[in-house]
């Protein structure tokens, strides 16, 4: 056993790793500067909310009632409405991409509002190129119209026949429907995927570049000791990077946190080990820092961003891509973090995901240990 793992050698290697971390700014850059930069960029840039969407209101006649409806469209913060005289003018504006959609308020429809027996047709035209925004705009417009109708009815200007069904909406976990609250936890998971893998991949690649790996291999240090020293030292660094990211999310992005920090630390640790081990695995292939960085971006960051359910709902992906998402560890970490931040310690969600993360950590470590050979072949 002492050939494979000796405490003294492991401690010596660990000491070396920490001295290097303290003296070489590159590890600090990856661990602290990069997550902050990525969170700031993506946290502010990536928002699925649509606000101030340009919208047209076509008023064929100006009556107190149409003006009051137009006001309603102007007052909502979600739409930036502008008036048009004719539907043709609004259509031209839509084609010129000046507005995302428009509503046609015909003089007679508004006049006939009191005539409850007739259905009230309104034409809402939406630019459907971006389906997501289109649906949101359509929802906003319908909401404004509905709200206005209710108000007019209670004011008594319309005959107050209550509609048959009243829908009362209640959004759980994210009552204000802030997409930031939902995105930032997932983003932390994606950022940690990159940080974890990059830390180990770059640091080992640097040892190859500087020729120190060759000396290590010629010394009695075993592969297990070298791997453990890299994992443990960067684990400490990675957990600190995680803490910085969480603090940033809580303080700067005002994301609520409803779970326990103990649980957060536990799932983060499991995920981090799998990410660090993946980085080591990359370093068995990439022996210079440039290639290591490229491979890490392509194999960790991209899948984590695309296939983790952060940006795109996994359930609506084609089946084969859904199958593919199962090998993206970030997927399980995203689920854990979103649950911990927005819902709480829901063991029904956290436990299975944590078990899977544990499986990833063990699997990547074992594969890496097998792949890391103690020679320069490869």
């Amino acid at each position: 056993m002492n050939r494979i793992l000796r405490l003294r050698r492991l401690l010596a290697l660990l000491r070396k790793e920490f001295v290097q971390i303290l003296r070489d700014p590159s590890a600090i850059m990856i661990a602290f500067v990069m997550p902050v930069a990525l969170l700031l960029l993506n946290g502010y840039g990536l928002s699925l909310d649509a606000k101030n969407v340009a919208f047209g209101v076509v008023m064929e006649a100006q009556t107190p009632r149409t003006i009051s409806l137009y006001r309603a469209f102007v007052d909502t913060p979600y739409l930036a409405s502008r008036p048009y005289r004719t539907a043709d003018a609004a259509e031209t504006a839509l084609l010129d991409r000046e507005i995302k959609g428009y509503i046609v308020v015909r003089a007679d429809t508004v006049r006939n509002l009191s005539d409850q027996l007739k259905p009230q047709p309104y034409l809402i035209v939406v630019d459907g190129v971006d389906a997501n925004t289109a649906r949101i705009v359509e929802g906003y417009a319908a909401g404004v119209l509905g709200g206005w109708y209710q108000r007019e009815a209670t004011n008594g200007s319309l005959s107050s026949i209550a509609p048959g069904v009243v829908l009362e909406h209640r959004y759980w976990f994210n009552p204000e429907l802030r997409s930031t609250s939902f995105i930032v936890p997932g983003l932390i998971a994606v950022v940690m995927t990159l940080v974890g893998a990059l830390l180990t991949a770059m640091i080992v690649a640097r040892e190859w570049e500087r020729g120190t790996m060759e000396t290590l291999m010629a010394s009695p240090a075993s592969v297990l000791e070298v791997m453990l020293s890299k994992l443990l030292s960067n684990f400490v660094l990675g957990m600190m990077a995680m803490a910085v990211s969480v603090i940033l999310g809580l303080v700067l992005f005002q994301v609520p946190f409803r779970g326990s920090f103990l649980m957060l630390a536990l799932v983060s640790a499991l995920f981090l080990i799998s990410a660090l081990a993946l980085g080591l695995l990359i370093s068995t292939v990439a022996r210079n820092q440039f290639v290591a960085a490229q491979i890490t971006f392509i194999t960790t960051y991209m899948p984590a961003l695309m296939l983790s359910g952060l940006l795109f709902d996994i359930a609506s992906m084609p089946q084969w891509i859904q199958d593919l998402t199962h090998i993206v560890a970030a997927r399980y970490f995203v689920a854990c973090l979103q649950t911990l931040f927005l819902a709480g310690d829901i063991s029904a969600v956290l436990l299975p995901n944590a078990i899977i993360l544990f499986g990833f950590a063990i699997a990547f470590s074992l594969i890496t240990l097998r792949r890391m050979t103690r020679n320069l072949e490869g």
Partner: protein
Amino acid sequence: MAIGPSPAATDSAAANGEPIAAPAIEIRDLCKSFPRGHDRVTALDHLGIDIAAGGITGLVGPDGAGKTTLLRLIAGLLTAESGSIRLLGHGIPAEIEEIRPEIGYMPQRFGLYEDLTVAENLGLFGDLHDLPREAFEQRQAELMHFTGLADFTARLAGNLSGGMKQKLGLACALLAQPRVLLLDEPSVGVDPISRRELWQLVRDLSGAGTTVIWSTAYLDEAAKCDSVIVLQDGRLLAAGQPSALITGAATRAFLLPVKPEERRRRQRQLLALPGVRDATLLGGHLRLVFSDGVPAEDAGLAPELAAATPAPARLEDAIVTLLREQMPAPGQAVANQAVAPTAPVPPVDTASTDTASTDVASADAVIAVNHLSRRFGNFTAVDDVSFSVKRGEVFGLLGPNGAGKSTTFRILCGLLPASSGSATVAGIDLGHARADARQRIGYMAQRFSLYGDLSCRENLRFMAGAYGLDRRRFARRLDWAVAAFDLGGILDAVCSTLSLGHKQRLSLAAAVLHEPDLLFLDEPTSGVDPLARRDFWLRIGLFVESGMTVLVTSHFMDEAENCDRIAIVNRGRLLALDTPGKLRADCVTPEQPDPSLDDAFVTIVQRSEPGGSPELQA
């Protein structure tokens, strides 16, 4: 000083019943190749050799000969495809774990942690070798004293000079008192003074019983070893004691006095004669090597040889003889060539070559450098350097890595502005019209800077385009280059698959394609075999005779004999400037009656810096 193998190790070896005379390393039929593109490159080709215990074995050969691969195989860092290695009676790599503590290995790039201090580096390797605390402390103190690093234990390894890094690497490799020490090109990038100190350290070790393998590209270094192994293309070219190899080659060397202005022409003439194995420039002489079988009379040299004096044979003579027997002699091919390299140029006055003084009248100076300095922050890379080079001269900038050669070079190429002072190239002030000056210069960079994915023809076409040659002129120059550099067979070969010698030829062809007046060569022959190096300098000689001016940097002192004048630079300052013969003559002392340029360099540096090794003052 207990630097050699520990008494315990020796005892256990004796207990194992190892006969004293058994070789330390036995290599049988060793083969190793590496993938490159779709095929494999052979690094070692059925190599078989015994390496005796104790003493220094020099492992010599040009780049790509297989030196590093062999050392890595012995250290168990690579696995051979076939064949076997036994080290101190243990099979490698199967039993490497048992024998690992007995192997000290220093890779080519030091293998030190630059972010760690000297003491931390040693401590790390002490722990990795699991040395008992007290033994480690004692050993560390010994090694620090032994290597002269005792005053620098708190300094970061990255802040040490090349020579000191090398010594620290050696100390780390010696911590566990190995019985076998493998050193991969320990003298590369180290100044001659540090190199001598390192050599002395290793010599002391071998005297104490350690078996040392010292790999090197320098034959003069190999000649000092107890035995040498000469590799060429992964095969064993020769092995044995240097003296035995020299005798065995059965060559005779003479120094033939020659007029300076004729020396390059005479060199080519003589090389073309049968029986002449080698002819090299050496100050005011041509150094000729004959194969023993051919009497000098047959070579038609009798009258001239009367004036020649016998010279001691060198290991290089033996190696060159062996190489010439194996392959077509490229030198003679060049010697027989009469291809004019460039457009006609005015006749050259080289009459005063060997007696040239340090100051050439600036009127006929092609390069004039006046009080040139270049600073990077606090660091002065070039410190008040002045020299001038006249037309048709080969001028050498000689010094170790970090001396300021490359910086001076880049300023003269117009790639880097000077901090102060002035430089004129071909009459163009580099302060103003750098692009114009560049058009007049051919530049051959270190490591050749060719495009590996392009064929030779494409590389040449690219260079022609970069220098604005039109299609017709390119066609004409391509024909010339193919003939002058013998590129016919490789013109459509992809560059990365070429041998180092071919790459060197192609690179030189690319540099002179646009018919420059000046040729700048940065470490042009480092790593290539002796024949390719001779071939290279013969071609340069042809250019020079047609009026081209050549500026060359080198840290390889003996190569500088090919220059007409040399500037010796160290730590940014110009220490001496003269002809090679004169520089050597100035350094003759009773202790060194016949100094080499390497000796001369050491003497000049030591004279300039009283107090010994410049590093220890750093």
